[in-house]
């Protein structure tokens, strides 16, 4: 039987779509920039100081953990029991059946995709919007005032930053806001912040090279490749995309020794430089919002409550609760954070919970929570060690 030529469109259309889907991403690599050495790219990156831009950042984390379905795995009874046993301050940590809370959000950050829109103008105006499904969390900084707004819970936090003449103090104040934002799972790290952190890790233990020129978010970019040359590191390499014009890091990808796909990728999906609509930085909480005023003295208490940092790779170790006195052992890629004990406010129930218990594996001398980029060891004596290093290295440090 002859097949009618009327079937041609049915083959041609999917073929065109398939070719397009393959060819378009390839185009991103068809970029040729003047050659620069790794050091020249570093200089380009460090001199860049873009102040006004708007863009959308996409974060993808694939830490190799089993995906957690809180809504289906936590039964109503379990929730009721947890509610009863937990201290009041920890009400937020009780997994509600649909509701997302700090804990689910913290876990979400280590496995999932997030979209954040960022608008900045000058040095003192910023708006970051985390685009959640059917909801949004906002951080608005305008001069010495800041707002944090959560649309789902209809809550807002309002505070002021002391405008200090001393830039060091100013920086400290800004860090305080970022810490506070992080403590309520409002993660606003941009590719820039992560790139700065990674570059600070370089030391003598890394190789630097320049990869292929490519395009990110419609901009041409150099690729800077950082490869730790210590065997014990969990990090295979990190790839930084540096805008060829402004030196701004546009994308950071961190690869783990354990998996092929990037364990973490944070990059702009779109970006435009230049003035931003100023009305975005004025915020008035809508009627019906529960507004609390930020009290700087609360910050310490809050950080004390903060139950450990899942994304420790991105954070400064000084973020850890002071009361627990973390200790940094080793340096650069082999840094290990040691806590004398689990922060006292992590409910032991939670650790015994099947959900979390399953995430740990038993090793000689303790239990290990293993992710693509961070290993956490809880020794039998209750000490906590964590770092972006192999389990063997953690165990040898623990001895």
């Amino acid at each position, binding site marked *: 039987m002859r097949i009618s030529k009327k079937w041609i469109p*049915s083959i041609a*259309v999917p073929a065109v*779509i398939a070719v397009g889907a393959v060819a378009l991403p390839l185009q991103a690599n068809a970029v040729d920039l003047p050659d620069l050495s790794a050091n020249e790219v570093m200089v380009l990156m460090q001199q860049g100081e873009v102040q006004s831009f708007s863009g959308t950042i996409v974060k993808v984390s694939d830490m190799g953990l089993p*995906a957690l379905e809180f809504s289906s795995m936590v039964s109503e009874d379990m929730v009721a029991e947890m509610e009863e046993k937990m201290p009041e301050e920890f009400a937020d940590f009780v997994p509600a059946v649909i509701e997302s809370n700090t804990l689910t959000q913290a876990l979400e950050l280590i496995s999932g995709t997030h979209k954040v*829109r960022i608008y900045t103008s000058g040095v003192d105006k910023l708006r970051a919007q985390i685009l959640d*499904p*059917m909801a949004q969390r906002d951080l608005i900084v305008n001069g010495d005032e800041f707002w944090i707004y959560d*649309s789902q819970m209809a809550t807002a936090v309002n505070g002021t930053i002391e405008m200090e003449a001393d830039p060091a103090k100013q920086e400290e104040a800004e860090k305080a806001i970022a810490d506070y934002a992080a403590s309520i799972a409002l993660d606003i790290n941009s590719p820039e912040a992560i790139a700065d952190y990674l570059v600070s890790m370089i030391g003598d233990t890394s190789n630097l090279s320049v990869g292929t020129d490519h395009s990110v978010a419609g901009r041409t970019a150099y690729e800077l490749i950082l490869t730790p040359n210590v065997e014990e590191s969990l990090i295979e390499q990190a790839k930084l995309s540096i805008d060829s014009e402004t030196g701004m890091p546009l994308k950071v990808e961190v690869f783990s020794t354990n998996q092929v796909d990037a364990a973490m990728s944070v990059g702009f999906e779109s970006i435009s430089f230049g003035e931003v609509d100023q009305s975005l930085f004025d915020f008035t909480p809508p009627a019906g919002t*529960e507004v609390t005023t930020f009290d700087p003295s609360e910050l310490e208490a809050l950080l004390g409550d903060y139950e450990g940092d899942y994304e420790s790779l991105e954070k400064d170790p000084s973020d850890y609760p002071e009361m627990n006195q973390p200790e940094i052992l080793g340096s650069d890629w082999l840094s290990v954070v040691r806590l004398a004990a689990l922060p006292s406010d992590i409910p032991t129930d939670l650790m015994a919970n099947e959900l979390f218990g399953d995430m740990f594996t038993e090793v000689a001398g303790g239990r290990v929570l293993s992710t693509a980029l961070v290993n956490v060891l809880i020794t039998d004596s209750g000490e906590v060690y964590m770092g972006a290093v192999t389990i063997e290295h953690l165990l040898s440090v623990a001895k």
Partner: protein
Amino acid sequence: MFAKSLSMSLMLSELRVMFTRRRTWAMLAAIALIPILLALAVALTAEELAPGEGPPFLSQVTQNGLFTGFTATLLALPLFLPLTIAVVAGDTIAGEASLGTLRYLLIAPVGRLRLLVVKYIGTVVFALAATFTLMIAGIIIGSILFPIGPVTLLSGDQISLAESVWRMAVVAFYTTVSMTGILAIGLFISTLTTVPVGAMAATVVLTGVSQILDNLPQLSWLHEWLFTHYWLDFADILRQPIELGSFASNALLQLGYVAVFGALAYSRFSTKDILS
């Protein structure tokens, strides 16, 4: 010229047939009932929902009636809206075939391609009517039962009444665009059979399958290719500044589905022996 006026009159007669059918009006009435029942339920229960409780937007309905339309759209999207859409899409060719009218349609000098295009556009018009019915019924019942005022967007910014109405129209249009893919799938399935109910059911089943696959994290590579993937992203219209990225991705994806299943429907329908 002749062909053009023929297409036009065919289109008009198709729309006339669709909108004089009692079934079409029954489905639109059922769609309008969703926001009405929702608003009544909220108004008649004294219990106030705390923010964050229940489906998104629901706790805002009592403060601002305009949210009834958004909440109703959200609730109708997973099943009810695709169900009515599948009924219309599955009926296109199979319905004519089962009534024995397809033969007569094709005896008239109407190309099969033209008939398919006219049928498809007819279903898109129904989708447009359905999504706007949902939104407009929501606005009307919401403004009767609750106070209305400036709408608070997800970003916490407030917009005027006029702009709210504009954004509602964009949301309804977004949802219509979301339906174009499933309409094309339904049209193709409808060319495969002479039993309209089978085509309708198959279309609904595919919608369900697509939504289930979209929820399996193991298949994350597949998600952005599923026709239901961007359905709930209409929420991006309710951000300040408006986020049109998902609108564009959604439109492109739906266009792909329309092209693929349109081509399949054409190939199948133009090579088919019409026996009834």
